[in-house]
């Protein structure tokens, strides 16, 4: 039996993070939550995840600063990124692809299982 794939969830809303963590664990993923970009970098330093889910507006910074940092390191630049955000209608996937973003999930319209579908798709 293979080890569970590791999802790093960068989300500063504790309640939403808990909800999404429960959904992902139920789908057999291992989940680490980071509430802001600095905590996310610390998590990545300890263990490079298989996929990163990140909210666009984080406490203290936007996701872009974090993604820019990840893109500048050889061991993290290929980690697929899913942007899970309320700003989906303002964003274009092609503009964010250079940041490693493979999927944009719209928080305002998503169904609970969409986050699992996005992770599966990003890991294909």
């Amino acid at each position, binding site marked *: 039996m293979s080890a569970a794939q590791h999802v790093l969830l960068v989300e500063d*809303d504790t*309640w*939403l993070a808990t*909800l999404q963590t429960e*959904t992902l664990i139920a789908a057999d993923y291992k989940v680490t939550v980071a509430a802001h970009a600095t905590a996310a970098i610390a998590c990545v330093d300890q263990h490079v995840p298989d996929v990163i889910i990140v909210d*666009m*507006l984080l406490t203290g910074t*936007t996701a*872009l600063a974090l993604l*820019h940092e990840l*893109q*500048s390191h050889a061991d993290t630049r290929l980690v697929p990124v899913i942007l899970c955000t*309320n*700003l989906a*209608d*303002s*964003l*274009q996937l092609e*503009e*964010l692809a*250079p*940041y490693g973003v493979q999927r944009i999930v719209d*928080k*305002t*319209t*998503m*169904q*609970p299982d969409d986050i699992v579908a996005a992770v599966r798709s990003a890991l294909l």
Partner: protein
Amino acid sequence: MGTEVPDIVPLVTPVVAAAHELKSPLSLVRQLSLHLEQGDMTNAQRRMLRQITLTSERALRLTTDLTKAARLEDALFDLEPINPEQICRDIVHELKPLFEAHGRKLDMAKRTHPLLLVANRDLLRRILTNFSDNALHYAEPGTVVRMQIQSLQKSGVVRIGVRDFGPALSSDMWQALQDKMATAPQTIHARPQSSGLGLLLASQFAEAMHGRVGVTRHRDGATFYVELQASRQLSLL
């Protein structure tokens, strides 16, 4: 990295900033409700959760419309020939649960010949969703709200209306509405007891597509409509 950081949140007014801020809690309420709906519960509890979900979705649509309206001048909205029937069908499908939860129905009048108009798909969809949402709250229980597409050939426009069957507007109210529309181009085409915010946004979306919105009074309700330039693409074939 050569990629420019996109201008993601042009917070131009406190209202738009508030709309952005409201999205997070509303999204969370919706997500929590959707999760709870997956569990076991009584019919009454399920009905109330559905109402929480649908209400948060309605509020989210309004906040998204607000942020979209704030970007009308900055963003480019491609105008293209569009058959509005598919958009109407999509809205009927999307809002069906909301109408059913309120004991009303939404449908569209069928057309035998397709019509094309020049519009931005997203903005047109928002206008018509807005009209439907407005109609829902004025339609009598058990009635049908109907979307209708018609060609006004003399003026070269296509009109898409959303007709509700509810209490008639009194003459006084109607006159007040007409006066507002005549004197203020940015008027709020609303009914009494409504701020008319949604319809004001619809009006701005229509203007961004070189169109207009309006309202027709009936003895048993009203039709809110948007008029947009007809596309000549079909006639050129």
